[in-house]
């Protein structure tokens, strides 16, 4: 099973991407989305998702609000901001550049 380390640098990208497709998700749902959409390959240490979310919130890429669910429990749901959308574009192109470069190396050797 990949260690959380393998997510380093791409966790922000994944969270932003997921939120751009599916607005208004809480932490657990984001985590589940990462797991499901990656075909259960990518998996974060669940708790470390939250400091990352809070950091992105401080950076102004996402915003949060509390909602009350039918069960009466409160949940904190996240949404992409305009700055987050821009950040997503930047991260995405950076990721593509990096993977393209890595692929080139793999093909050449």
């Amino acid at each position, binding site marked *: 099973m990949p260690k959380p380390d393998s997510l380093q640098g791409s966790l922000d990208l994944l969270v932003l991407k997921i939120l751009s497709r599916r607005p208004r998700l*809480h*932490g*657990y*749902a984001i*985590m*589940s989305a990462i797991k499901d959409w990656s075909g259960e390959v990518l998996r974060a*240490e*669940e*708790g*470390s998702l*939250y*400091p990352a979310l*809070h*950091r992105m*919130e*401080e950076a*102004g890429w996402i915003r949060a609000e509390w909602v009350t669910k039918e*069960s009466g*429990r*409160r*949940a*904190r749901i996240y949404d992409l901001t305009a700055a987050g959308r821009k950040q997503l574009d930047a991260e995405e192109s950076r990721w593509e550049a990096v993977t393209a470069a890595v692929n080139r190396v793999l093909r050449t050797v």
Partner: protein
Amino acid sequence: MSLGSRLANVFRGDRLSREIDEELRSHIAEAVEHGRDPAEARRAFGSAIRHSEESRDIRIVAWLDSLRADTIFGWRQLIKRKVTSAAAILSLALAIGACTSAFRLIDALLLRPLPVANPDRLFALYREGTGFDGKPQTFDAWAYPDFRLMRAAVKDQAELLAISYAERTDVAYGSDQEIEKAYLQYVSGWMFGSFGLRPAVGRLFTENDDQKPGAHPYAVLSHDYWTRRFGQDPNVIGRTLRMGERLYEIVGVGPERFTGTETGIVTDIFVPTMMHPAAIRDDSTWHRTLAVLKPGVAIEPVRAKLHATSRAFEQERAKGFTGMSRKSIDRFIDQTLLLEPAAAGTSGLQKDYRVALAAMGMLVMLVLLIACANVANLMTAQAAARAREMALRVSIGAGRWRLVQLVLVESAWLAFLAAVMGAWFARWSAPFVVSRINPPDNPARLFLAAGWRVLGFGTALTVGVMFLLGLAPALRASAVKPASALKGGEDPRSRGRLMHALIAAQVAFCFLVLFVAGLFVATFDRLSNRPMGFSPERLLTLNTVAQRSQPPVFWDQVAEHLRSVPGVETAALADRPLLDGYGSNSFISVNGAPPTEVLAYFRSISPGWTGTMKIPFIDGRDFREGDTAPGVAIVTEAFAKQYFNGENPVGKSFERTARHVRYQVVGLVRDAPYRSMREPILPVAYVPLHSVDANGAMQPIREATFIVRTFSSNPLALASTLRREVPRAQPEFRVTNIRSQEELIRAQTVRERLLAMLALFFAAVALLLAGIGLFGVLDYSVLQRRREIGIRMAIGAQAGDIARRVTADVFGMVIAGALAGLGLGLASVRYIGALLYEVKATDATMLALPSIAILAAALLAAVPAVIRAVRIDPVAMLRSD
């Protein structure tokens, strides 16, 4: 979210923590709802505390948050120990307030630049040499013709300004017969321009207003005077005022903050130098000279040029000197011209109080250090009590810096609260001290604006105090070794060493304060108990002016009239009262010998003056009606000793050499202080007030002083009556100032009284603080060693032995501190020598008094601790732990 929200989060930290925790909990709950095993979900989640801390640190300014927590914790610590905290804050507040006051005074008098353009390029001209009395002296008075030559000599490098000494003069407005007092200064017409000043109303002088002697009867009022006297009435322009026998037209008002260049006096009226009666005389030095250097000009070449010019002027002038010995003339020529920075103005008050203020500043600084040592000791003792708390904090992961911060924040609380109270104290005390400089009828006026400079000083002082208090205990706390502290160990002696060192320092400072205070008090005591040679009780002096000079007989008639006023015992006339600070002198020659090198001092008196003053005759007679000057003289014992080898001079004669006039000695009287209480007895000759010129014509008198001895023990009760009676006898006469002789004497000892009073107060505070400090340390050491004492008592130690053990270390420190203080005291005396009068630092009493006081305080402070030590019950003590 931004820095703003992170800052805001600091102040809603609890809510933030709750929200983070709730979100994390909701994650687990969600997992369980999705059918996962709660234990597995928690494991997958990782350390909830770590994640929540991490999130918290992201969403908050972490250092500020910890500071907030420590601030609250520190406040609670203070509140927990109300009495000790209050005592610490009060003593610090007093000391900080006193330091701030001292700084305000020093700043206002000596440091703050004048509100003129380029004060940093302003210099005052001095001459350093040997006075006519043979002592080294510095003069700042200049004659105008000399000034004019110097100004021309350096006109490319600097602008010179002639500015007279501010003088208290009589002013009358228009036809108004009421005379009032105002400060007058004669200034160069171009002064305002050179200073870059603009008028508030009307115009200021220019060079054209200062051309021909007596030709520019214009006056400029200072803004302060305009406000005080005229309520800022703009119609004041064009009004006339009379000073002496001359009328002046008011042409303008100066800018708001400019009060002249004589710091400590607010000039009311400026007039051009050409209006001064001695404007073109080369033998009258009546003004200061200031130089405004042009930008980029070096000082030394300008000084050399001025020196050469002035020296040539005096050499030329000295050719006309007669009646002076060669040596006196050489001494007079041989002076060095100096340029001293005058950014803060230049005044007699600065000269008189520079050293005094520095000494007071040092004293209050020492008191502050003593107070700091006290509180630092207190905090060290408390840190000992909290060693376990600190150790616990370290072991659960608090960083060392966090502990330093914890202790420093506590001392910051103390320093801050003390600073706030101290500021309030300084607000009140600085004006209080200023009001006690100078006699009440002529107060010093210093602008004690509480500006950025004072605020900066106060802040720096507060921060300094915070570190003095907190740094040692803070570092100690941070160096705590959890293992040994939690076991209850740690060497108690290392802490004791710091406290003992502080005690020694405290005692040393306290000794110094007491010692200096003792010198000041002794000085004041000796000055005020100086033998007077006359009886100052019940004496009034009435400075009186006639509108025009009047024949002497008219003056005699007024004196005669005053004698008939009920309540008056006797009255006489003199040119001035004794001890008003002024004198006139000249060289004399006895039996046709060459002129003496020692100056003789003169005072003009009427018949009956010696009787009114109660100066006893040794031989000869008083003046009679018809005696005139020159002609006869009454001389003092010191005069006889100086010029007649102590022989009885009655019947002999001397010549006043500068005027070539002879006096025959008709009486010999006892000595009396002449112009100043601090001076040694001078050789004085009394001559008749009635004087005749070379042709024998009687000289009219414009100004003189009536000396009145009253029956009442409060002579001032008669003041208003006498003020009325003088013009009733002669309508031309006006009394301009009434002072009792005792007031004049007091005015001479104002500085000494002030220094003695303040020093005594701070000595008491220092002694009290040092005593409290000693008590605290002794008490603490008993508390620390109570187990050891219990064991000693259990195995049979006597009470005396216990007392000795408990106090020995501390008394060693007291002795060491006192010796250090003694050394400091003896070393510092030469800096304050100018403030002392007939007191020697090495006097046994001067050294014994502080020693005894400190020893007594130490003994008193030791009593409670010793009692506590010998009352320890060994059984209870050994059981308790």
